[in-house]
C-alpha cells in the first residue's frame, strides 16, 4: 500500500481521548479552512473543488457529490441535510465519525452550506445512536458559542443554523427521500423520483442530502484542493474510504484506506485474516444489500467499477466476513429477515415479497423445504427484481426490496449445492 493521508481519522488516531472536543479540534488546525474559505472563496469555487475531487457519496449509492450539488434548483430557501441514519447491517463508520470527530463534520456542514447557499442544515442521526447524537449536539453548541455557527459566521456575513434530529428506528430512513419525509414528521416512506431532492426536497424546497462521511471529507478537500483528493486512490474511485470490517475477521473495526486495494489486502492484511485461521467462505462487500463475494474475488480491486463488474458494490463500505463454519442459508435468512422487517410496506412486491422470501428460507433452515422451493425463491426474487441482473432492475420505488434479493441470488450462485442439501427431497435425490 502506498502512503496516503489519513483524511478522516488522523485526529482521532493521534488524540484518542479527546478528538471530539472543540479545543482539540482547533489545536489541530480545525476551522482554519472554514475561516479562510468564508473570507476568500466564492461558493461556486467550493463547488468546483468538490467537483474536481470527484468524491463519490459514501452512503451507498456512490453518486458524485459535486455533481449532485450542481443539480440544485435556483430556488430559495435551500437546505442541507446530513444523512447520519447509518443502518445498513455491517456499517458503523459514521458512528465513529460522529462520536470521535463531530467538529470535522460540522466544519464540512458549514462549508457545504456556504457552497450550496443553504442557511439551515439538519443532521439526521438514527435514534439508536444517542451517544453520537449527544457528541454532535455538544459540538454544535460549542461551535455556536465560538461563532462557527449562527449569524454572520466569522464575520463573513454568512448565516447558518444547524439542528440535530434523531430518527425513530427505521432503516429505510437512510434512503434520502424517506429521510426527508421523516424529518418532516411523516412516516419514513421513500418518495417517487423525480422530483429529486435537489429540486424538491425538504418542505418541497431544493435540498442536498449527503452522508456523514462524505461531508467529513469536505474540509480536507477545500483545504488541499480537489485535485489533491482526486490523486489519492484509484482511477474511478478516488480518495480514502472508511470500511467497516465485521464478522469472522480477526481485527474487526473501521479502517481508513485509499481506494484501490484488493479485497485480499483489506481482509487479510488489514483485517488480520479469518478468525482461528479458518477458511474464508464468503463476504458481503458493501453492506447487507450487496451480493456476496467468494474466494475467487479476493484479487478484485476495491473500487466502484471493479466491484460492479464482478456483480456487487461497495455500498456503505461494510465488509461482513463469513468463515467456513457459516451456514449460508442461515446467514441469508438473517439478512432477508432484516429487509422484511425494514420494508416500509408501500410497494406490493417488497412488502409481500420480502416476507414470503423470509418464510421460504425459514422453511429451508428448518429442513421443511420442498424441492420446488429453489425455483420459487428465485421466482419471488424475480418478481421484486426482474431478471435478477446487476445492477438490479426494480418493480419497487426504492432499492430496499431488490436488496433482499442479493443474499438469495448469492447463495444460489455460489452455494447452490449446500442450499439443495438442506431440502429433504433433494437431499435424497443427491445421495441416491
Amino acid at each position, binding site marked *: 500500500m502506498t502512503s496516503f493521508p489519513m483524511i478522516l481519522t488522523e485526529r482521532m488516531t493521534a488524540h484518542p481521548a479527546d478528538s471530539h472536543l472543540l479545543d482539540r479540534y482547533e489545536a489541530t488546525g480545525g476551522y482554519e479552512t472554514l475561516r479562510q474559505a468564508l473570507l476568500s472563496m466564492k461558493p461556486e469555487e467550493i463547488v468546483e473543488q468538490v467537483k474536481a475531487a470527484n468524491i463519490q457519496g459514501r452512503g451507498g449509492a456512490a453518486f458524485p457529490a459535486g455533481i449532485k450539488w450542481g443539480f440544485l434548483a435556483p430556488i430559495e430557501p435551500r437546505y442541507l441535510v446530513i444523512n447520519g441514519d447509518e443502518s445498513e447491517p455491517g456499517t458503523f463508520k459514521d458512528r465513529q465519525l460522529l462520536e470521535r470527530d463531530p467538529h470535522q463534520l460540522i466544519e464540512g456542514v458549514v462549508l457545504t452550506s456556504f457552497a450550496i447557499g443553504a442557511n439551515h442544515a439538519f443532521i439526521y442521526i438514527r435514534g439508536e445512536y444517542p451517544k453520537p447524537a449527544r457528541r454532535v449536539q455538544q459540538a454544535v453548541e460549542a461551535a455556536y458559542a465560538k461563532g462557527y455557527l449562527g449569524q454572520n459566521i466569522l464575520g463573513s456575513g454568512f448565516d447558518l443554523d444547524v439542528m440535530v434530529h434523531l430518527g425513530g428506528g*427505521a432503516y429505510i430512513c437512510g434512503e434520502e427521500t424517506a429521510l426527508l419525509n421523516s424529518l418532516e414528521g411523516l*412516516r419514513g416512506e421513500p418518495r*417517487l423520483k423525480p422530483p429529486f431532492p435537489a429540486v424538491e426536497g425538504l418542505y418541497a424546497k431544493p435540498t442536498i442530502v449527503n452522508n456523514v462521511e462524505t461531508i467529513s471529507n469536505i474540509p480536507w478537500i477545500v483545504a488541499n484542493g480537489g485535485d489533491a483528493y482526486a490523486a489519492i486512490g484509484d482511477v474511478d474511485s478516488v480518495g480514502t474510504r472508511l470500511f467497516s470490517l465485521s464478522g469472522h475477521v480477526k481485527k474487526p473495526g473501521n479502517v481508513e484506506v485509499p481506494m484501490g486495494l484488493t479485497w485480499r489486502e483489506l481482509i487479510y492484511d488489514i483485517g488480520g485474516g479469518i478468525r482461528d485461521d479458518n477458511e474464508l467462505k464468503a463476504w458481503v462487500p458493501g453492506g447487507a444489500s450487496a451480493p456476496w463475494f467468494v474466494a475467487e474475488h479476493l484479487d478484485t480491486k476495491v473500487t466502484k467499477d471493479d466491484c460492479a463488474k464482478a456483480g456487487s458494490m461497495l455500498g456503505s463500505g461494510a465488509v461482513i466476513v463469513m468463515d467456513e463454519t457459516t451456514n449460508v442459508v442461515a446467514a441469508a435468512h438473517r439478512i432477508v429477515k432484516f429487509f*422484511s*422487517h*425494514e*420494508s*416500509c*410496506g*408501500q*410497494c*406490493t*412486491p417488497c*412488502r*409481500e*415479497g*420480502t*416476507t*414470503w422470501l423470509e*418464510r421460504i428460507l425459514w422453511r429451508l433452515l428448518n429442513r421443511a423445504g420442498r424441492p*420446488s422451493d429453489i425455483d*420459487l425463491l428465485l421466482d419471488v426474487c*424475480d*418478481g*421484486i427484481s*426482474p*431478471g435478477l441482473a446487476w445492477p438490479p*432492475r*426494480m*418493480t*419497487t*420505488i426504492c432499492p430496499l426490496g431488490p436488496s433482499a434479493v442479493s443474499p438469495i441470488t448469492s447463495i444460489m450462485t455460489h452455494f447452490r449445492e449446500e442450499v439443495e442439501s438442506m431440502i429433504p427431497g433433494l437431499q435424497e435425490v443427491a445421495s441416491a
Partner: protein
Amino acid sequence: MPEQPPPEMVTISLDGQEIEVPQGEYIIKAAEDQGTYIPRFCYHSRMKPVGLCRMCLVEVETPRGRILTTACNTPVAPEMIVDTESAVVQKAQEGILEFLLINHPLDCPVCDKGGECPLQDQTVAYGPGESRFVEEKRHFEKPIPLSDIVLMDRERCILCARCTRFSEEVSGDPLIEFVGRGNQTHVITFPDEPFASYFSGNTVQICPVGALTAKPYRFKARPWDLEAIESVSMVDASGASISIETSQNEVVRINGVDNDATNHGWLSDKDRFVFQAIHSENRLATPLIRDDAGDLQPASWGDALDRVADALGSVRGDEVASIGGANNTNEEAFALGKFLRTVVVTPHIDAQVGDALNPEFLAGVTPRAEIGDLDGAATILVWAGDLKEEFPTLFLRVRHAVTQMGAKLIVVHPRRTGLDNIAAEKITYRPGEGPEVVRKLTAQGDQDYGAVRDLLTAGPVIALVGLTGRAEDPRLAEAVAAYALGLPGSKVLPLARRANVFGALDMGLAPTLLPGRVPVKSESGRAELESHWGPLPGEAGLDTAGIIAGLAAGDLKALLLVGADPVRDGRNPDAVRAALDAAEFVVSLDMFLNDSNQQASVILPVDGFAETEGTVTNIEGRVQKVNRILPGPGQSRALWSILDELSSRMGGQLGAGDGPAIAKEIALVAPAYRSMTWDRLEWGPERDGVVMPDRDGVQELRFVPDDSGLRPTAGRLALHSGRVLYDGGTRNTQSPALAGLTPDPAVYLHPRDASALALADGQEVDVAGEFGTVRLRLELDPSLAEGSAYVPANLDSTWVLGVPDVVTVEAQSSKGKKNEKKKGKKKGAGE
C-alpha cells in the same frame, strides 16, 4: 365549461402504435384515453399518483435501455416508446397479483365487492393461475367499525392507500391512516376517534377490494342483481352526479359519478345515504283528508282532488298562495307555476322559505361563475354559510382549487368553518356587522383587512356568496356580490341551499319572476309569455313572509305547501303556525308529514327523488337530467300529474300530461332555456349538464346588486343561526344511517361573553329571543365572534327559537314567564 387553452400534443409510441397525447399527461391516463387500459389499484384520476401497488408497471425505452416504470406517475414525453404488454410487463403484473393475493382471503363469494372487484377482475385478466403461497395468511380481527357507517376488513385490504389519501388530500380530515410498517401495515383510526367524516362513504366507493364497506349496503345485494341509473343528488344545489342503484325495486346504494363540472365523483355521506328516506315507513302513500272530527283519514285520489278543486275554486285566485317547490324537478316546478298563474291565477308564489335570498339576485347575477372556474381562480372569496355543512361537494371543489391548484382563499363568516384551515385569510364578524366589513373592504385607505385586500387585487376572483346564517339580512349577500363584482376578473357564484331552488326560480316559482329568468315587471317578457298562456297579472306577488302575513290577516284564504315546512324554516314558528291555522284551506303535496302540514285539510302523497324523471338546475345554472328508477310508494303520484288532473277538475287546461311535454313547453316559453331538451342531457358530451342560457337561450334578467338599505347592526348577543349537514330535517331523520349523526343541540358563546354572563362550559342555559325560548347546553367557542350566540338551526329543539336578530342567554330560570314577556313585545305582523 370555463375556457382553457388546448394542451400541447406530443407523439408517443404505445405498444407499437403512434398516438397523439397531451404533453405531461401520465402514461396511464394517456393510454386509457386511447383505449389501452393499464391495470391499476392505487391510481385514482382525482388524486395524486403514489405508485404504491406497482400494478401499472410498463416498459419505457430510455437512452439507458428499457426500464420498468409505473405508468401512473410517469408523464409522457415526445417520442417516448411505451410497451404495456411485453413479457417483462406481463411477468411483473402476474407477480404483483400473486403478491397481493398471498394475504388476501379468498372469501369472494361472501364479499360485498365480489362481482365488481378490481382485484378479482384483474386477477382473472392478468393474474397467475394459482398461488404458490402455502403459509398461513396474515390475520386481523374481522370487520371492525371505523364509524357508525363504515366498516374495515383489514385482511382484505391491499394497502393501496386510496382511502387514506382521500381523507388527507381530498376531504382534509385524515382520521384513518396506515398503522405499522411493512407486512404489518394496516389502515385504522385512532382509538376512540372514529372515522366521523362527512365524506367517509367515498372511501368505500373507491376501495378496490372489499376492505371498506358501508353499513347501508352490506349484504344487501350482489352486483349482478343491481339495476343502476344516473341522476343528480338532491341534497344541495351543487348538482353532484350520482348513480342510483336498486335491487328488487329498492334503492340499495348511491355512488358518486365523476362529473368534471361538478363533484369529481365525490359525494357527502348525506348525498350517499339519504336514499334510505325513500323507503321510510313514514312515507305518505295515500291521500289524506281531514274529517269533521279533525282527524286525517285515507281517501281516494278522486275525493281528495275534488276537495282541493272545490276549495281552490271557491275563493278568488289571488286569495290563494303557494310556498315550496324547490325540491322538485324543473318540469314539476314549471307545471306548478303554470298551474298557479294560469289555472288558479295568483301571483303569490315562492319556492323559498324562511332563509330566502332575493330571487332576482340568485337567478340573474352576472357574470355568474361556474364551479370549474374555481380551478383557475387566483383568489376565492367565500362569504356564505359553512360550505362543509351546506354544500359539502362544493366544499371539496374549493379545497381542490386551494390545495391542488394554488388558489388563495379568503373566508368571511361569524365563526370557524370547515375551510378555515386552508384559508389564507379569515374574517370573523359579528352577525349584523357584515355591512361594516363590506364598507371597510371597499373604503380607500382603510387600515383594516389590508392582507385580505391585497389578496383580492389578484384576479381572477371567484366569490361564493350566500347567507352566513339565517338571522342575517338577505341583502348583505347582494352587497357582498356588488363588492366582489368590482374585483379583478371576478365572477359570482350565488349560493342558496335547497336542492333545486335555482331551477324553481328559473321556472318562475318566485313572486317576481316568470319562467326563463324573466322579471314579472318586464312588459315585453310578460307579453311574450302571455302569447302562450293568455293574460297574466302584471304585479309581483307576495313572498313567503308576505304570504304568512296575508294568511294571518285574512287577506289570503288558501295555501299550497309543496314539500315545504315553513313552521320549521320560518323566522317565527308560532306566527307561521297561527297563519296556517287562520287559513281556510291548506293543501300539502309532500312525501312526509311535518310540523306545517299536520294541520292541513288535504295531504297528497307525491313521488320524490329517484321516482321522478326530469331536469334540475344547480347553483351555476347548469341543467342536468334526473332519472326515475322506481315507482313511488303506494298511491303516490308525480306532482305534474296531480296538477294536471286538478286543473281539469278546476276547468283549466294545464297541458302537463307528461314530463317530455312539459320539457318542450319550457324550451318554448322560458327564454333562458330555449335550447334545452332531455336528449341533449342524456347522450354525448353534455351528460355533465349544460349551463343556461346557451346557444339560442337568452337571459333578460341582468341583476345588478347594490349595497344599499342594509339593516343596522343588531344588539348585544346577535344570533348566528347556521345550518349543519345532519340537522333535524325529515330526510336525515328518516334515513337510519344518518339519523344518529345529528349533533346534540347547544348554544355556543365566546368564552369572554360566557364569563361576562357568569356562565360555564357545559351549563344548561335558557336562550331567549323574541319568538321563543329554548333550554340548551352551553359550549364555549373561541372561534365565534364576540357578542354573538351560535345556535345550530333545525336541531331537535333549536328550531323553536325561530330566527330572532338577538337573543339573551341566562342560567336556567323562570322560563315560561320570560316567553310571555317577549311575546308581548312582538313587532310587526307574523313573519
